[in-house]
């Protein structure tokens, strides 16, 4: 129980910051930090006011290879895929990625989005330059995701034509920033992990080879991540997920 009296709340927050709580109470405090802004504020107070006591510690000598290891891990590790809370429990990183791809929450969200997609497609046809030569085979509404892994509604529309042309339409204001780009990925195979469909050119389209197109199925996951300008150097996502959602087979008529 997180107490309600301000003084008790300050004491509990202080004991948490000092590291004096048992594991169960620590876990309870960490849950409360997510939802109780006042309590989070009291914790931050102690974190900030006690910090000067660290001055005595000076600086330890860091192994010169340490940064390279961090950088390597950043390259192979995806941005936090589930809602992140302080502090993050250690989880096997690969499992985290898989968990996100299989997340029930994501399924629910994207299932609900099928309706949103239908509405959007009714509203937005004028904004989508329809592939005159080829009807739509799939579309996917991708949810915007912030750095904390929170989703904030439809942010990107992906349209896959019968002939393999992939078009994409931003529904949210996105600026990758200089030296960065947006890269589109899909999951063909759970074991293999996300596969790049290419860096999204501004307002342009990507052409999928037929064999890849054949591999797209209903419910297939697509995501857009923030990557270096030339795309991920390692063939796997390195930056955080900006948009994520599942493919939905289109009705037979062309857009």
């Amino acid at each position, binding site marked *: 129980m997180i107490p309600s009296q301000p*003084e008790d709340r*300050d*004491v509990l927050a*202080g*004991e948490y*910051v*000092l*590291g*004096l709580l048992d*594991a169960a109470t620590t876990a309870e405090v960490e849950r409360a930090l997510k939802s109780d802004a006042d309590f989070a504020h009291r914790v*931050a*107070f102690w*974190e*900030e*006011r*006690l*910090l*000067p*006591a*660290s*001055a*005595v*510690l*000076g*600086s*330890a*000598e*860091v*192994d010169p290879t*340490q*940064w390279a*290891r*961090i*950088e390597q*891990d*950043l390259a192979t*590790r995806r*941005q*936090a895929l589930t809602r*992140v809370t*302080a*502090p*993050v429990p*250690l989880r096997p990183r690969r499992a985290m990625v898989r968990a996100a791809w299989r997340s029930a929450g994501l399924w629910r969200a994207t299932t609900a989005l099928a309706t949103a997609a239908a509405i959007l497609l009714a509203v937005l046809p004028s904004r989508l330059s329809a592939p005159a030569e080829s009807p739509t085979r799939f579309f996917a509404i991708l949810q915007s995701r*912030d*750095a*904390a892994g929170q989703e904030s509604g439809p942010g990107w529309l992906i349209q896959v034509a019968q002939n393999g042309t992939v078009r994409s339409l931003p529904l949210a204001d996105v600026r990758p*920033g200089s030296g*960065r780009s947006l890269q589109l990925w899909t999951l063909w195979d759970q074991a293999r992990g996300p596969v790049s469909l290419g860096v999204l050119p501004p307002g342009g389209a990507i052409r999928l080879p037929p064999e890849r197109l054949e591999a797209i199925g209903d419910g297939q996951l697509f995501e857009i991540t*923030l990557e270096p300008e030339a795309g991920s150097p390692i063939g796997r996502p390195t*930056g*955080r997920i900006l948009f994520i959602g599942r493919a939905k087979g289109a009705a037979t008529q062309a857009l």
Partner: protein
Amino acid sequence: MEPFDHASALEGCARGDSASLRRLYDREAGFLLAVALRIVRRREVAADILHDSFLDIWERAGTFDGRRGAGRAWITSIVRYRALKYIRAAGRETDLEVGAEIADDAPDPFAALATAQDGARLHGCLQRLDADRRQVILLAYLDGLSQSEIAERLGTPLGTVKAWVRRSLIALKDCLS
């Protein structure tokens, strides 16, 4: 030390700018390693904590609420909580490993605070506490000792230590606000 804008570096991380993370690392890795080392006492464990903490910082930068001056406290907390979790789960080693000792002639944290940057206020407020109560706060904050470890270290009953913690926190809150 030159001033450093931790908040803007964290905002850079949130935008996916790895150069911002590198700037934070160059600036604070040594300090953060010292924070972890003081708690876990083992160099290789502290290095792992530093590693994981920088991945955390990168991933969670978007959740940082950029109030000025709080950025350094935020990254330090990430390291401290990781180190504390480790030490509570692993149990503390009584034999300190070679090369990961706290020297007997290590500076007194309270004395160091008097001259530390931004330390005057905390120093003044800790000064108002009795010496042993002050030590309880610093042993917990810096060394990551649990209340029973502090009781053992000071030869004081656990109940007394708990009461000291509570009263000290109430007095400090009042003084630091």
